[in-house]
C-alpha cells in the first residue's frame, strides 16, 4: 500500500510537470477555436520552452544573485504545490507535510520572490509589474484562503487531501456555500494566473501587463523555467478547483491500484473541460482597467466570506 502511495505521489508530480505546458496549449487551442482563428499546435508551449533552454542567458549588468535564483525558487514552489494537491489520489505521503494553508503560503512565497526579482533590475516596467502583481495578490491570497476555509469547515480539516476525500465520499449534493466559493475561486484563478480580465497572457502592450512585465529582463533558461512555472501554476489552480468542487473519481486509497485507472482519465477529462471553460471565459470577457482589478478581487473575497456565512447559517 505504501509503495502505491509513493507511486501515486511520484506519478502526480511527474504528470504535473510534464502535462502543464500541454494544458496551456489546450487552453490556447480552445481559445483559438472560439475566436475563429486557426489553432497553433497543441505542443507549441513545449517547443517554446525547449528553444529557450538552448539559448544563452543574458543577464542585466547589475542583476543580483536573488535575480538568478528566483526562477529555481518559483519553479520549485510550483512543483511542491503540485505534490500537495490531491489530483489523482488522496493518500499522498507529502500531504502530511503541508496542508492547504501551507499551500497558500507556498503560492505567496513564489509571488513574493517573483516580485522581488522584478524589482531587482530597477527598470520602470519591472517595478510596475511587481507592484501590480502584489496589488492583485494581496486581495487574491485571502480570497483563496477563504475559499479553502469553507471547504475546510465542511470537512473539518485543513488538509486538502482529506477535504477532497471527504467531499468525494458525499453523494452528489449541492452545497450552497460551495457554489458561492466556486465563483470566488474562479475569479481568483483568473487573477492569479494573469488571464483576461485581469491580465492578458498574449499581450504585447507593456503598459497593460502584469505577469509579463515582471519577466521582461529574463531570458533563456531562466525565462524557460518561469514560463514553465507559470504553466504549472495554471495547472495547479485547475487541480485545486477540481479537488475542491468536483473531486469525484479521485483515488482514495481503498480501491488499490485500480483507483488510479479511474482517477487518471477522470482527471484528464476534468482538466480538458476546465481548460475549455477557461478559454470560454477569456473569450467572452474584456480586459479590465488595472484599477478595476482590486474591485474584482474584493468581489471574490466577499463571495468567499459570504460562502462561509452561508455555511455557518445553513450548516451546508
Amino acid at each position: 500500500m505504501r509503495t502505491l502511495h509513493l507511486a501515486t505521489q511520484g506519478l502526480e508530480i511527474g504528470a504535473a510537470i510534464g502535462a502543464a505546458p500541454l494544458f496551456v496549449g489546450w487552453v490556447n487551442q480552445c481559445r483559438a477555436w472560439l475566436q475563429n482563428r486557426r489553432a497553433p499546435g497543441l505542443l507549441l508551449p513545449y517547443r517554446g520552452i525547449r528553444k529557450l533552454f538552448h539559448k544563452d542567458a543574458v543577464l542585466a549588468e547589475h542583476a543580483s544573485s536573488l535575480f538568478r535564483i528566483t526562477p529555481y525558487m518559483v519553479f520549485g514552489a510550483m512543483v511542491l504545490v503540485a505534490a500537495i494537491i490531491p489530483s489523482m489520489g488522496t493518500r499522498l505521503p507529502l500531504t502530511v507535510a503541508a496542508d492547504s494553508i501551507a499551500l497558500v503560503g507556498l503560492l505567496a512565497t513564489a509571488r513574493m520572490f517573483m516580485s522581488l526579482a522584478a524589482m531587482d533590475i530597477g527598470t520602470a516596467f519591472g517595478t510596475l509589474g511587481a507592484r501590480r502583481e502584489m496589488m492583485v495578490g494581496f486581495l487574491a491570497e485571502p480570497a483563496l484562503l477563504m475559499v479553502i476555509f469553507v471547504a475546510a469547515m465542511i470537512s473539518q480539516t485543513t488538509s486538502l487531501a482529506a477535504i477532497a476525500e471527504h467531499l468525494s465520499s458525499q453523494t452528489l449534493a449541492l452545497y450552497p456555500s460551495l457554489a458561492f466559493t466556486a465563483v470566488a475561486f474562479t475569479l481568483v484563478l483568473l487573477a492569479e494566473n494573469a488571464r483576461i480580465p485581469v491580465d492578458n497572457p498574449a499581450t504585447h502592450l507593456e503598459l497593460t501587463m502584469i505577469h509579463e512585465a515582471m519577466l521582461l529582463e529574463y531570458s533563456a533558461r531562466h525565462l524557460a523555467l518561469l514560463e514553465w512555472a507559470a504553466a504549472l501554476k495554471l495547472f495547479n489552480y485547475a487541480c485545486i478547483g477540481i479537488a475542491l468542487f468536483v473531486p469525484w473519481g479521485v483515488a482514495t486509497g481503498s480501491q488499490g491500484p485500480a483507483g488510479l485507472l479511474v482517477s487518471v482519465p477522470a482527471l484528464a477529462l476534468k482538466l480538458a473541460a476546465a481548460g475549455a471553460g477557461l478559454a470560454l471565459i477569456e473569450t467572452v470577457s474584456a480586459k479590465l482597467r488595472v484599477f478595476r482589478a482590486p474591485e474584482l478581487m474584493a468581489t471574490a473575497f466577499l463571495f468567499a466570506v459570504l460562502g462561509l456565512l452561508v455555511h455557518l447559517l445553513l450548516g451546508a
Partner: protein
Amino acid sequence: MPKTPLDGALVLIAAWGIIGLAGLLRPHSVRFVGRVLFPLSALCGLALAVVAVAGMAAPTSRALLLVGLPDLPIHLRCDALACLFLLVLGAATTGISLFAGGYFRQGHGTAPGLLCLQYHIFLASMGCVLLADDAYAFMVAWESMALSSYFLVTTQHRLAEIRRAGFLYLLIAHLGAIAILLSFGVLQGGSWQFTFDSMRAAHLSAPWATAAFLLALLGFGAKAGLVPLHVWLPEAHPAAPSPVSALMSGVMLKTAIYGVLRVSFDLLGAPPWWWGLIALGVGLGSAFYGVIFTAVQTDMKRLLAWSSIENIGIIFAGLGLAIIFHGFGMGALAALALVAALYHCLNHAFMKSLLFCGTGAVLHATGQRNLGRLGGLMRGMPWVAWLTLIGALAIAGLPPLNGFVSEWLLLQAFLFAGDVPRAFVDMLLPVGAAIVALCTALAGYAMVKFYGVIFLGQPREPALADAQDAGFLERAGLVWLAAGCVALGVLPVQVIGMLNTVCRGLLGVSLADPATQWWLLAPTAARGASYAPPVFMAMSALVIVLTLLAVRMLYHRRVRRAPPWDCGYVRLDARMQDSAEGFGQPIRHIFEPFFLIRRELPGAFDRSPRYRMEISDRIWRYAYEPVALLVRRVADLVTVLQQGRISTYLMYSFVTLLVLLGVVL
C-alpha cells in the same frame, strides 16, 4: 551556583546592571564600550535565555528581597509565564547587544558610556518587570523601563523632532502607567495588600473584575501600541538608535503582553468570554489599521514601527480568542489560541529585531532613513541584504519561516472554533480569520516594498554605490536573529512543548501532546490538519537543487552580461523605478478613507513644479489634536491668574484667607 531559575535570572540582571555601570568608567571610549561591554551583555542575554528555558520546567520559585522602603520588601516570583518572557528578553538581547556593540559610534548625542548605562538599566528593568510579584516592585520596574527607554529614544536630543517624539512617548507611557496603577488598586479588592498573592486570593465581584481588566487593557495597551493608543510608536521608534528600536519593538512591547496575561489569567483567574471579544476586536482593528499604514510609509523605521502595531494586534487577537474559548470552557482550543499568541510573541521578537537591526546597518552605511533615497544596496551590502531578506519573508508569514507557524496556529484556532454557544460569536470568528488572512497578505505587500526599495533596483543616490557592508559584530548579531527566525520556523514542535508548560500554568489545560513525532505539527484533532516544517524545508531544498542540477546537466550554464533590456529603452536611470510612494499607491487608492492625505499638486504653468504628498493618521488629527487644543485653552485661562508679581500672589492669599474666614465664621 544559583539553585533556582529565579536566582539565576537575578544574578544575570544584576550583571547587566554592573555592565551598565562599567560603561561610566570610560564613557567616551567607543572601543571599550562596543568591543567589551556589549558583547558581555550579549553573553548575559544568552545565559538568561538558557536559564529561562531550564526554568520553564522547574517549579515556581519565589524570593523576598529586603531592600527599598522599610516594611515594603520586594516580592519576586518566577513561574513558567515569566520564564517564557525572560526567554524572549534573553534571546533577542543576545542578537541586539552583539549588533549594538558594532553599532554605537561617537556621535553628537549621548556619550557611548552613558548610553551603555541607559541601555542596561532598560534591560534590567524589563527583567524586573517580569519577575515582580507585588504591585510596588512592578510599578517601580515598569517606570524605570519607561524612563530608561525615554532617555534612549532621545539619544539625539539636539534635534527638536526627536525631543518631541520622546515627549509623546513619555506622555502616553504615563497615561498607561496610571491606568495600570488604578487596575492594581481595583485588584487588591479591599485588602490593601499589594502583593500579587493577595490579589490572586481576592475574589472580585464581576463589575470590579471587569473594571480591573479594562484598566489593565488600557494601560498595557498603551505600552503595546494598540490602536488608538498607538500614536507614540511611529514617532519613537524612528527617533531611537536602531538597536534600541529593536529592543523596544521586539521586547518591550512584549512586556505589555505579559502584563495583560498576568492580570487576566493569573491575578483575575477566570476571565469571562466577552472580555475576549473586546481583546479580539481591538487586536484585529490594530492589525488592520497597522498594516495599511505600514504599506504607505516612506521612512523605513516608521514602516517597521507600524508593522509592530500590526503584529501586536495579531497577538492580541490570539489572546482574545484564547479568552473567548476559555470562557466557554473549550480547553483545547483556548490552549491552541494561546499557544499561537505566545508563539507570535517569540517570533516577533526575532523578526522585528532583525529588521530593525538591518535598517540600522543601512542607516550607518548610507545615512538615510528615507526610502526615496535608498536602493540597490544588495550589491554593496550582501550580508545585511540576505539576512534582512529572511526577516522580511518571515514577517510576511511565508513558509517555512517562523511567521508562518504562528499564523498557521492562529488560523487553525479560528477555523475549528466550531460550536461556540453564542451564535453571533460563531459567525464573527471566521470573519476574524478573513481579517488575519488579509493582514498577512498586506504585510507581504509592505515587505516587498520595504525590501525591494531598499536593497533591490538601482541606487537612487550616487553615494549609495559605495555603501559598506556591516562590520563583524553587527553581522554576528544579525546572523543570530536570522538563525532564530529559521529555527523557530523549522522546529515548532519543540517550541510548542515549552509553550505548553505556560499554557498549563495559565489555563490548566495544554495542547494535546504534539510531540508524537518531532517533525510533525498536528495540534488539532482534525484529521490531516498537519504541517511538518522539516520535511517541507527538506523537500523545497531538494526540488530546487534538483531543478538546478537538471538544468545545468541537460543544457549549459553560459551567461552573458548586458545592459538591462527594458523593452529597448536605452536611457534608463534610477529615477524611473518606483519610489516608495509609487509602490504604496495601490494601497492608498484602495484604502483611501482610512488615510488623511494632503496633496500639493503643481499647476500647469508652474515654473518649478513640485509634487508633495503627506499621509497622516486620522486618529491623531481627530482624537488627539482636539484634546491637546483643549488642554492648551484651559492652560491659557489659568495664565490669566499668573501675573508674575509677588504682590499679586500675596493678594490672592489674602483674598483666599478672607473668603475662608467668611466660610468658617
